[in-house]
């Protein structure tokens, strides 16, 4: 396929918090940067982040990066790499102050310093407590403020944006070096090869592989799909964070405040089932306990609805006054997304995914690393990743609240700095291999010529249903084993997806078919990795691995204190050790995780 080639020093794919922070670093260094993005930068999913950005500034009382580090390691259930976690927690205050200097409108204290709010899991004194206020926020719109601030800085630095472009495939040469990406311009349907000396993925998570997801429709794991097709393994893909109460069929969250105010969960028999699972805390038990109970009720056939696949959140007994006054917005959400008025009827809810801990394996410099000649963390020259699509790994098996924004900015910047160093040492563009665009050309030709295939919509829904039923918040070995077979069969069907509309200009059907190619890779990685990991750790909670002596909460450090690496080719799994050695601090040794 003869196609247009454009040359840049660096190409960044994705324009959320991580992509914008990385691009800014590169543009301010005077490099020619192209940022490719499916949607306008300020419409990235970073906008949904409300909680704030965690950094031990100590503006509200004593705090230290060591305490932040401890909370992050513990939160990760010891699967996080302690070198990366130390790096993030030490850098966090610097990047927050930098954002402040960029003009980000943080909430402030009377003395003018940045205000910090409390957030679950953040403690003083190496986890001993009391709680510490560490989350820097801009009202409940921190992600929004961050995106706007970083976008403005990028415009000032003359970053070149390619908006409504979808990256298709990674370009690698015979040595494995990454030389850019192919990308589709939606407006024209043209494919262009972006020939870059360095390529940085900041494409976000793939929460859309689940039927119940808080993620926006754009979160289809494009970077993960591209990496997997190019032979790069995906790390720790079995770990996703769930929230117990998302609206069934929609994914929109119902705040935990509803249960705090006295709302409770019912199964199809009208039984308040949490009394059986947590006799004293009942519906106020911790998130994982509530989610696990809900999944068990559904598995055992006591879910409500025609498919017995959701539970009911009852709050009508609170009365309209309490609901309207103490739970503003809940009635609107229930009416709009569940078609019920909670003043009269319960809300159908289900555990809902919202964050992906795993991703493209990187070190704490944002360089992509794979098993190779220099051991399990051999750098892939020219390839970088940051943000939710990457796995540094700072979140391990479970992310600490407010660390998602910290991750974006710290590793977006670090990856940018690594690119700058690499470009200094490697002047000029390496020649493109003759088959540079072949994979993309073949995918597009297959799609255009496909006859007798299945609809993208139907296949997408089947992937999401399968992931939800077989690889949800609480995982059963029999369902996982079945799930692996089902998702492999779906993978074969996705290879024959068909679109009716073959037009060139703004063909969204084609874009969605290309996204489906990415979703299925992530779904397979997730199911296969989850099936193989025979322990419970953090967000990976298995019914056959529970709390017993020597195995706190079902965790098996003897056999499973290691990172999963999934390769697309043959669904092969490898493992690599967790780095328990921080850069300068003392190792935080594994112990039982209790709050």
């Amino acid at each position, binding site marked *: 396929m003869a196609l247009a080639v454009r040359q840049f020093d660096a190409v960044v794919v994705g324009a959320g918090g991580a992509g914008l922070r990385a691009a800014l670093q590169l543009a301010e260094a005077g490099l020619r940067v192209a940022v490719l993005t499916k949607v306008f930068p300020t*419409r990235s999913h970073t*906008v949904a982040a409300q909680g704030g950005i965690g950094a031990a500034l100590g503006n509200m009382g004593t705090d230290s990066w060591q305490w932040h580090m401890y909370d992050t390691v513990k939160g990760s259930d010891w699967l996080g790499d302690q070198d990366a976690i130390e790096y993030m927690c030490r850098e966090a205050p610097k990047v927050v102050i930098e954002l402040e200097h960029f003009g980000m409108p943080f909430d402030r204290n009377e003395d003018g310093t940045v205000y910090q709010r409390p957030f679950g899991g953040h403690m003083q004194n190496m986890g001993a407590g009391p709680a510490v206020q560490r989350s820097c926020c801009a009202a409940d719109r921190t992600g929004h403020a961050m995106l706007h601030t970083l976008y403005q800085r990028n415009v000032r630095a003359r970053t070149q944006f390619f908006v409504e472009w979808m990256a298709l495939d990674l370009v690698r040469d015979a040595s494995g070096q990454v030389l850019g990406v192919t990308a589709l311009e939606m*407006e024209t349907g043209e494919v262009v090869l972006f020939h870059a000396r360095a390529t940085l993925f900041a494409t976000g998570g793939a929460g859309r592989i689940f039927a119940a997801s808080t993620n*926006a429709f754009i979160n289809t794991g494009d970077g993960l799909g591209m990496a997997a097709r190019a032979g790069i393994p995906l790390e720790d893909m079995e770990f996703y964070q769930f929230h117990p109460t998302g609206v069934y069929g929609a994914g929109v969250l119902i705040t935990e405040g509803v249960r705090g105010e006295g709302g409770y969960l019912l199964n199809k028999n009208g039984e308040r089932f949490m009394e059986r699972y947590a006799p004293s805390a009942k519906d106020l038990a911790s998130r994982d306990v509530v989610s696990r109970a809900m999944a068990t009720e559904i598995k055992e056939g006591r879910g409500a609805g025609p498919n017995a696949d959701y539970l009911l959140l009852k709050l009508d007994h609170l009365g309209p006054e309490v609901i309207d006054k103490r739970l503003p917005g809940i009635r609107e959400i229930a009416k709009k997304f569940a078609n019920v008025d909670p003043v009269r009827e319960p809300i159908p809810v289900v555990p809902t995914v919202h964050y992906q801990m795993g991703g493209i394996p990187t070190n704490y410099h944002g360089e992509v690393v794979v098993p190779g000649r220099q051991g399990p963390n051999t750098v892939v020259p020219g390839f970088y990743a940051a943000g939710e699509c990457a796995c540094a790994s700072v979140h391990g098996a479970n992310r600490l609240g407010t660390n998602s924004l910290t991750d974006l900015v710290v590793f977006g910047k670090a990856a940018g700095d690594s690119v700058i160093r690499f470009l200094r040492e490697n002047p000029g563009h390496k020649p493109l291999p003759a088959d540079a665009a072949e994979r993309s050309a073949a995918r597009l030709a297959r799609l255009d010529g496909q006859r007798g295939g299945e609809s993208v919509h139907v296949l997408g829904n089947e992937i999401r249903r399968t992931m939800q039923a077989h690889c949800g918040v609480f995982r059963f070995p029999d369902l996982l084993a079945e799930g692996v077979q089902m998702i492999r069969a779906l993978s074969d069907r996705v290879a024959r997806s068909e679109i009716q509309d073959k*037009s060139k200009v703004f063909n*969204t059907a084609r874009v969605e078919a290309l996204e489906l190619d990415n979703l299925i890779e992530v779904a397979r990685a997730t199911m296969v990795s989850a099936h193989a990991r025979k322990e419970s750790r953090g967000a990976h909670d298995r019914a056959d691995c529970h709390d017993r002596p020597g195995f706190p909460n079902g965790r098996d450090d003897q056999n499973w204190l290691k990172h999963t690496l999934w390769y697309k080719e043959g669904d092969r799994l490898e493992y690599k050790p967790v780095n328990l050695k921080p850069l300068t601090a003392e190792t935080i040794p594994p112990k039982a995780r209790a709050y």
Partner: protein
Amino acid sequence: MAVTEADLRRLRWRCRRGLLENDLLLERFLVRHAATLDEGRLAALNALLERGDNELWDLLSGRVECDDARLAPVVAMIRDA
């Protein structure tokens, strides 16, 4: 000038947002009304979609009233869809 297929596809893509809440409401709206949109409505929608996601959700959820007479009719259509 009539609303073309390409106009509608472009609109459909711009209804992909950063917030799931907006995705869902706009998707519902498109299912009901995409086929019968006229130029005026299309222009108003495109202008509305220029707004940020939080602002859009405030408008579509009814938390904030629409201050722009040109956009108010499409905001109402999305709310009721």
